[in-house]
């Protein structure tokens, strides 16, 4: 998936990935896509929950060796 920016959260535990995601998304324009790299398994549940709560669109979570790639579209 193509992203406008990438955020590296490898090695970080909850709540840091969502805290960094919230900050990073502020720098993006509405409609742009943020890619988040993370390896804390909680991210699989937390990112969808974060998106629901903040009104941003979760485009997908790709699972691969060593971690996850999460794609979020800034929606407002």
């Amino acid at each position: 998936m193509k992203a406008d920016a990438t955020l590296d959260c490898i090695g970080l535990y909850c709540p840091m990935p969502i805290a960094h995601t919230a900050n990073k998304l502020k720098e993006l324009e509405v409609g742009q896509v943020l890619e988040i790299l993370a390896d804390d398994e909680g991210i699989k549940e937390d990112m969808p929950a974060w998106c629901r709560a903040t009104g941003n669109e979760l485009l997908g979570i790709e699972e691969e060796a060593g971690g996850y790639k999460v794609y979020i579209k800034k929606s407002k």
Partner: protein
Amino acid sequence: MQEKVTLVVFSGEMDKALAAFNIAIGAVSMGMEVTMFFTFWGLNIIKRNEGSIKSRGIMRKMLNFMNRGGSKRLPLSKFHMFGLGKWMMGKLMRDAKFPSVDELIATAREAGVKFIACTNSMGIMGISKEAFIPEVDSFAGVATYLAEAKEGKVNLFI
């Protein structure tokens, strides 16, 4: 209107402080407005680490000597073992790149979490405003807490 979260931080242990700051940082990251009320032993978390805590009267002096507080001095609620357990937990946290209480305080503040110190406990224990870190927004009582909590969606006592 922004959704509100209030946390009453009654405990002064490191592990409980971590839990409180995790929730606070998570909630502000989700666009919620977060207020942390530090009361009783919880005041230890927001005491400054440097210098001594001045108070009047022999009992309060003794209390503030034994209960010095400060984010770097918080014990573990379990397996503290005169500091050995805390040292080991600190090492595990650093190895896991998990932030310390100090760093969590800074992150919470940058994200806009409000810190309130309870004046009632301060009065009983004889702790003055000067004992606290400058990040504390205000000094207030139970009415301030309840005014926030009654509009809160999530209200926790830690």
